[in-house]
């Protein structure tokens, strides 16, 4: 007889218009790692938010360690030993790591903060699980990987025995993910029970003991993971079909050079170089993958390449025409599309509906306006078409962007950027947080654009992705391109080395 850390029965949760969880059953065996799978919008986050006391279900029961509980708020959940690392980090950015750890916890010094004490326990904890982080650093100075560690430490610090990790690896580099899994295994061995949400099936195969799969808010299956389980077993469960992808036989790119970036420099507010002489070029119908550890200038490079930040010096030539000095609107006009990293604050107007979000860059074009007035019919028609084409799951095109699941939010951005008939696409983490179906779809779309002669800069933390569709691969390290090589003659190890700052010997010219 196995004992369960968590038993959820018949959970139903509705949001206006749609059912996010429909009679879902879920069980977590004590001391195991349980994978929670499902397409974007399947209801994974919602289910876990219920377990963490953030949402209250309309129906259903929850048992923790065998006894029935009602969870009205996160405090109650935490008191029962449940901890959650959210899909969107719950960290207060202007505060330090230690301060974030202390949030909401009683202090041993009564009303006074006991920073020193907490810092000591934090160091101890981070030693035990090998989670390295500077306790005195402000969150906003940390890389996403480090923030992830802070979240895990904070959960552990609160004495969690049941850990929920909502897509923890979406923002991590492969090395960081590997690190994380080591830690998770360590914790399992320590007797902790872990729920892991991810879209990366190989991760489930690697680490999970069991899976539960959700589809459209319903539980559609669940089984132990055995060495015999395969990725296609899981995809079958998730989407009801197999997802095949084969990007191998793409024709070599032969187009003329489209985008030239020459000696691009950018300094931050402390006058330190963030981009330190970036040089590369992209040809027509070519995808250049940019690998690198997060925080080495990728975000800034995108911002400069789209006019959002003025560069300190250097050149950006598009078909021979200098772009530097233009405003963001100028870049848009020249056909530079941008899939930004921060979809919430930059890529979407969260309070606007889907239809409107699809035109925020093009509202003034004759397609959507006439004599200065918006053409609502055209806007709605556009939305209808794209919703279908990109399989955006929502209650309708009037649904607000903020009410969509992360994956569907990403699809809106993609739909908008790709249909703007760009000359260049700057794609920063275009598939972060997407389910495999959607991920494959996006990659296909990018390939389609490539075939139509669009030049694409693909920035991704996912090396698989880069290797899968790039023609050439560049590695960025501390604001410099450490090397550009042809996709055919490159290995993951090599890229990994360069990402760590080791110079490559062979620089392929294209």
């Amino acid at each position, binding site marked *: 007889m196995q004992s369960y850390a968590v038993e959820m029965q018949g959970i139903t949760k*509705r*949001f*206006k*218009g749609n059912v996010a969880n429909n009679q879902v059953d879920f069980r977590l065996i004590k001391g195991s790692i349980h994978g929670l799978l499902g397409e974007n919008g399947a209801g994974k986050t919602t289910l876990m938010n219920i377990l963490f006391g953030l949402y209250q279900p*309309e129906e259903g029961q929850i048992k923790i360690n065998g006894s029935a509980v009602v969870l009205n708020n996160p405090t109650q959940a935490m008191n029962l030993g449940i901890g959650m690392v959210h899909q969107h980090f719950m960290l207060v950015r202007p505060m330090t790591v230690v301060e974030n750890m202390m949030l909401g916890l009683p202090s041993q010094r009564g009303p006074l903060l006991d920073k020193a004490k907490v810092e000591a326990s934090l160091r101890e904890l981070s030693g035990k699980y090998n989670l390295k982080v500077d306790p005195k650093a402000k969150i906003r100075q940390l890389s996403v990987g480090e923030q992830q560690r802070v979240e895990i430490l904070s959960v552990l610090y609160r004495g969690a025995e049941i850990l929920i990790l909502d897509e923890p690896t979406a923002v991590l580099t492969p090395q960081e993910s590997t690190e994380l899994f080591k830690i998770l295994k360590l914790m399992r061995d320590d007797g902790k029970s872990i729920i892991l949400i991810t879209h990366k099936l190989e991760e489930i195969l690697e680490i999970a003991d069991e899976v539960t799969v959700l589809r459209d808010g319903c539980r559609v299956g669940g089984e132990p993971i055995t060495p015999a389980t395969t990725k296609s077993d899981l995809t079958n469960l998730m989407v009801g079909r197999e997802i095949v992808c084969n990007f191998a036989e793409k024709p070599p790119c032969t187009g003329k050079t489209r985008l030239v970036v020459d000696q691009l420099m950018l300094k931050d507010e402390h006058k330190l170089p963030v981009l330190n002489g970036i040089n590369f070029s992209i040809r027509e119908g070519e995808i250049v993958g940019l690998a690198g550890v997060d925080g080495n200038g990728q975000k800034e490079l995108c911002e400069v390449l*789209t006019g*959002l930040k003025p560069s300190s010096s250097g050149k950006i030539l598009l078909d021979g025409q200098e772009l530097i000095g233009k*405003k*963001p*609107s100028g*870049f*848009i*006009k020249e056909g530079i599309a*941008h899939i*930004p990293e*921060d979809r919430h*604050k*930059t*890529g*979407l*107007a*969260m*309070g*606007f509906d889907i239809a409107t979000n699809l035109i*925020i*860059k093009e*509202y*003034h074009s004759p397609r959507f*306006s006439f004599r*200065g*007035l*918006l053409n*609502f019919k055209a806007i709605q028609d556009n939305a209808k078409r794209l919703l279908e084409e990109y399989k955006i799951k929502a209650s309708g095109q009037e649904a607000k962007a903020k009410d969509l699941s992360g994956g569907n939010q990403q699809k809106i951005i993609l739909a908008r950027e790709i249909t703007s008939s760009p000359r260049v696409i700057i794609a920063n983490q275009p598939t972060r947080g997407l389910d495999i179906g959607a991920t494959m779809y996006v990659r296909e779309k990018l390939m389609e654009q490539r075939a139509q002669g669009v030049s694409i800069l693909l920035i991704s933390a996912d090396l698989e992705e880069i290797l899968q569709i790039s023609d050439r691969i560049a590695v960025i390290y501390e604001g410099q391109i450490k090397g550009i090589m042809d996709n055919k003659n490159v290995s993951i190890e090599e890229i990994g080395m360069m990402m760590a700052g080791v110079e490559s010997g062979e620089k392929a010219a294209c």
Partner: protein
Amino acid sequence: MLSSTGFFKKTLVSIAPSIITISLAILASALLLLLTGQDPVEAFQTLFWGAFGSTHRIAETLVKATPLMIMALGTSIAFKSQLWNIGGDGQFTLGAIFAMTVALNFSALPNMLLLPLSFVAAFLGGALWGGLAGVFRAKFNANEVITTLMLNYVAVHLLSWVVRGPLIDPKGHGFPQTPLLDEALKLPILLSGTRLHLGIIIGVLIILAGYLFWRSTLGFRIRLMGEGHHVARYSGIEISPTIVLIMVISAGLAGVAGWTEVFGIHYRLMDDITAGYGSLAIVVALLGNLNPLGIGISSFFFAALIVGGSTMQRMVGVPFSLVSVIQGLVIIFVISRVIYTQWRDRRDGSINPGVSNKSTGRSY
């Protein structure tokens, strides 16, 4: 197709919260009146009669609604973009000063030209005051709540100086006021025997223009600014000039309200011509959900409350202070109406963000 009863029911359900909360506000005020020994029934009858009791009174209500709707529409433009322009009073004042300066100094021009010129001057006066706050925000990141507020105080003193110094009526025995406007420059009266002047038509036109405005690409740009500066920039909008532009439009309208009030009612400048319109316009704009039609309705509602309230004050002897207590209570109860909607939605098992979230949001 909705059946007529279905439509009726739907309408009833949607306006029920407002009706309930206004009734509650009246009930609370009635209690206060009882405590002072006033007859609440008589008081509220008088209030209602005072606002709607005759053609003349309805005209008065419209007269009050005029500056409110124009200013509130301006306010709504800034608020939609999350710029908290609370400087309506100052912008109103500057509009009035500019318009009057033009009217008094260019009296040689034909009136056909002078009147529109004074209108433009009023817009520019307001726009200058708001635009200053806009530039401060855009160039120096100076919070507009403070700057517009401070500029209100500066405007009060500026007006005080203007009517005692440069524009004082030379034949006015030293009283702090400007000369009267030329007859031909006064806005025509629409209904003789009342004060209903052309301003109301201008107000309604501005409301209609507001309707079109939000359907325009410029209106879209402003709404997009309200979603955050990151996404706005990403969409190709230039933040700084747009901030200034928004403040200029918003404040320019407040200046126009100053124009209708001075050219339609006072015919001259003196102290205290703005008394309170600025904060009322904020209330009107937000109660109207920042939507032109809503602003039209709520400006009428508030004008009625003011006109009826002062009638009540005079005829029933309710102290003035109690009239503002009632005003405050009405606003508080009316904005609390979402509680009812929230409760209903919770009961129905769905979550509704409520009205509030449309008009509130992150300002930075």
